[in-house]
């Protein structure tokens, strides 16, 4: 039995609207936290293992703004970089990958057209395909998938959808608990564990981060492979270093911050 060295990843998420980073509290009430390229570089230098940029408006008019933002953000970034929001076709995926993203995250479009997952995976490889799932608890052991930024319920079970997404070619699952998003009360560990133990691909836990111990909980109790947070980093509440120190103290493998 070898010592497990694969690091649990800490991912900084930038929610972007019209080229500026914002963060919603439970998908509403938005605050401006600055320039995406600047923030991405700052997070990378502070020790974040990966950057996710989510275009939360993703209207037709914002596409060109987004591509320019992706290009500017990618230029100085030498850690994995995922872009999501409004990716509805192979061409949309190709455009952000050509601008320097390494992975695309697809959510509503993957539900509407599951074959899109396969098309992007066949062209760019599964490592470039992240399926984002926004889920809300329905029973003590079941969660329902929501789309359109959490505005529309689908009747689809999150666990079943995660398994199907993997079969279709997803390389990772980015799982957001809508019940916890923006609450800073901790990740939804039962949801994360349910998905992470049902698919043999990495699961990124999202929604609810507020304190360093929340990260310990989601890696230990939630069996997550990575954990994502936005506002917890933007507003300087907790540094990546402090989170990683707490993880290291708990015996969880992390990449040193410098």
């Amino acid at each position, binding site marked *: 039995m*070898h*010592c497990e*060295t*694969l*690091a649990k*990843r800490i991912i900084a998420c930038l929610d972007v609207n019209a080229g500026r980073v914002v963060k919603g509290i439970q998908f509403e009430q938005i605050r401006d936290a600055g320039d995406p390229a600047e923030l991405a570089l700052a997070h*990378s230098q502070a020790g974040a*293992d990966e950057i996710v940029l989510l275009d939360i408006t993703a209207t037709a008019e914002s596409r060109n703004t987004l591509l320019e933002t992706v290009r500017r953000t*990618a*230029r*100085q970034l*030498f*850690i*994995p970089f995922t872009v999501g929001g409004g990716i509805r076709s192979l061409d949309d995926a190709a455009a952000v*990958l*050509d*601008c*320097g993203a*390494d992975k695309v995250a697809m959510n509503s479009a993957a539900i509407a057209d599951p074959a899109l997952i396969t098309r992007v995976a066949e062209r*760019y*490889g*599964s*490592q*470039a395909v992240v399926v984002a799932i926004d889920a809300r608890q329905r029973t003590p052991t079941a969660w329902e998938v929501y789309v359109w930024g959490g505005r529309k319920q689908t009747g689809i079970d999150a666990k079943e959808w995660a398994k199907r997404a993997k079969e279709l070619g997803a*390389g*990772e699952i980015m799982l957001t608990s809508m019940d916890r998003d923006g609450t800073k009360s901790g990740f939804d560990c039962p949801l994360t564990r349910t998905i992470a133990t049902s698919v*043999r*691909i*990495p699961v990124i836990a999202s929604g609810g981060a507020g304190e360093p111990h929340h990260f310990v909980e989601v890696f230990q109790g939630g069996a997550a*492979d*990575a954990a994502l947070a936005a506002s917890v980093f933007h507003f300087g509440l907790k540094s990546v270093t402090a989170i990683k120190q707490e993880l290291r103290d708990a015996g969880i493998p992390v*990449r*040193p911050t410098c």
Partner: protein
Amino acid sequence: MIAIVDYGAGNLTSVVKALQHLGEECAVTNDPDIVGRATKWIIPGVGNFKATAPLVNGKLGEVLRTGVDLGNRPLLGICLGLQWMFEGSSEAPELRGLATFSGECTRFSDQVKSPHVGWDSIAVEQRSRLLAGIPSGAYVYFTHSYRAPVCSDTVATCTYEEPFTAAAERGNLFGVQFHPEKSGDAGLQILENFCAL
């Protein structure tokens, strides 16, 4: 000029960006004439081993083979590029690799999550020109479902399920399973070492 050989396996933007950051002149190409004129070669790539067929066939295959046999032009294989430098892969048994390094690539078993995605630490096993300045225990970024075995030219290993080749080198031929262009400062150092050869 460094030729980044484009054989249709994945997105090469990140590799270009990292080389530009290091101030290196590079061209993404599949033109055998341009590849032939380059002073160094990088063979990146992700995806199925089947995709490596253009590296063996036709004029491009001939140019690469001749250069490798002469041994005077530094070549860096990244990810699928490294796997291609081994003898072959169970992913596409009908194809042969470059066979610079001995052994066949195989898939991770069902005992572990696959692909192996994320930052993992490497153990530096031998003196290496490519890994100069990189300490054992350094973290680099991996994303792959097949792994190359440990061989006599392995200079660094990573352990996931069992030890596999993270980096190998022989003469001017180098390969890394991880993505130096996505591995932060450690990765940029490795690319800089290659550019400085």
